[in-house]
């Protein structure tokens, strides 16, 4: 049983909301959610918001996907914000030192 992904595209911002379990099975859904925006490379300054409000579980493959998104969205120039993570997930993000790579709020 895996989660579901909802994508909301605004002018300069893509919001990806993940519900349920964020694990390996989500990889193609997650990739599809951002791939077009990056491949188009029209919006270099596009901001990504990863909304984890409904995320119940996260494992290392999900962290790997987030790192890959960051790299494909321009590495250090990427503007990615992770929002609404529940405490236990926030703890995982902090243990992985994500606060140095992403905005976490």
């Amino acid at each position, binding site marked *: 049983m895996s989660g579901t992904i909802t994508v909301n595209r605004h002018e300069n911002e893509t919001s990806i909301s993940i519900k349920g379990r964020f694990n390996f099975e989500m*990889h193609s859904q997650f990739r599809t959610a951002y791939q077009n925006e990056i491949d188009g490379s029209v919006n270099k300054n596009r901001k990504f918001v990863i909304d984890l409000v409904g995320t119940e579980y*996260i*494992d290392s493959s999900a962290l790997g996907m987030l790192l890959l998104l960051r790299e494909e969205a321009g590495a250090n120039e990427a503007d990615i914000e992770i929002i609404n993570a529940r405490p*236990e997930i926030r703890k995982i993000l902090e243990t992985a030192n994500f606060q140095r790579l992403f905005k976490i709020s």
Partner: protein
Amino acid sequence: MDAEERQLAREIQEQIHQEMNMLRTDAGQIRHLVQDAIVKLTGSFNGLRDQSNDQHALVTSLTTSMEGGEGGGEGEGEAQKRINIRQFVSETDRILRSFVDHILLVSRQSMEMVHRIDDLSSQMNEVVSFLHDIDAIAEQTNVLALNARIVSARAGEAGKAFAVVADQVRKLSKDSNQFSKKINDVVRRSQENIESAKEIIEVMASKDMSFAIESKGRVDEMMDEVSKIDRFTAATLVKVSEITDRINQDVGTAVMSLQFEDMVTQLVQSLEKHIGLVEQFTGVVCCGCPDAAQGDHAARVAAIRQVLQEHTAIFAQSSHKPVDQVSMDEGEVELF
């Protein structure tokens, strides 16, 4: 003075002499006892001071090594490189961190690999759809060949050669169909392989992160505990150091107080001197002055008075106390 008197005086003098000798012996014994005791006390106090200094040095080195650990001081020479608990815990933290980093790297690369494999899989699907196109062309060719065969049959003898060509074309169309089936089969097996590769990658990429959280929590707890122990140890060491200082001060005071040997010696010397004076004085008084021995009563009294006056004068000269102090707390005494 008659012989009997002289005999009595000699006996009295003898008695006084014996008692004075006893006093002298006692005084000498006092001096020796005090000197012995002082030597031993000085030795033992000096030993105490040395040991307390050693203790102080130990405490200082302990404090220094603790402070060295706090700074995590590197390159301070081999002696400073002793590993303490704090360093051990922070090293554990570092290893845990690099372990987590390693897992993240593996996961990220695995996901990238999965993306590439997904791309490969969709390209395979494109191949399959091209094969469908080829199949359609083969089917059309087959129909065309069939039509050509019918037309050639109508043409009779003239169409015979054409019928052979039509059969050949039909065979080619069937061959093409078979190849297409074989390619389709290979693609299907490749897709199966791709799926099993993805399963392997899934296992590699998916690690539950709760172990890292728990380990991190434990390391943080240990760090807190070590800090508490360090603070307690530091405070205790400060107290021990203060006690050592006080011991040193007390030993100093004790050693200073041992100066009383000097005073006792001087007092005993004065005692011995006065014993001599008393002996001399009684000798003269009892035996009478040799000059006045033959004289009459008045002359003897005059001679004895003369001796008393001389003695009083000597006593007055030497009567000042050799040691003025009554207690050890008075006055400044130099350490020896």
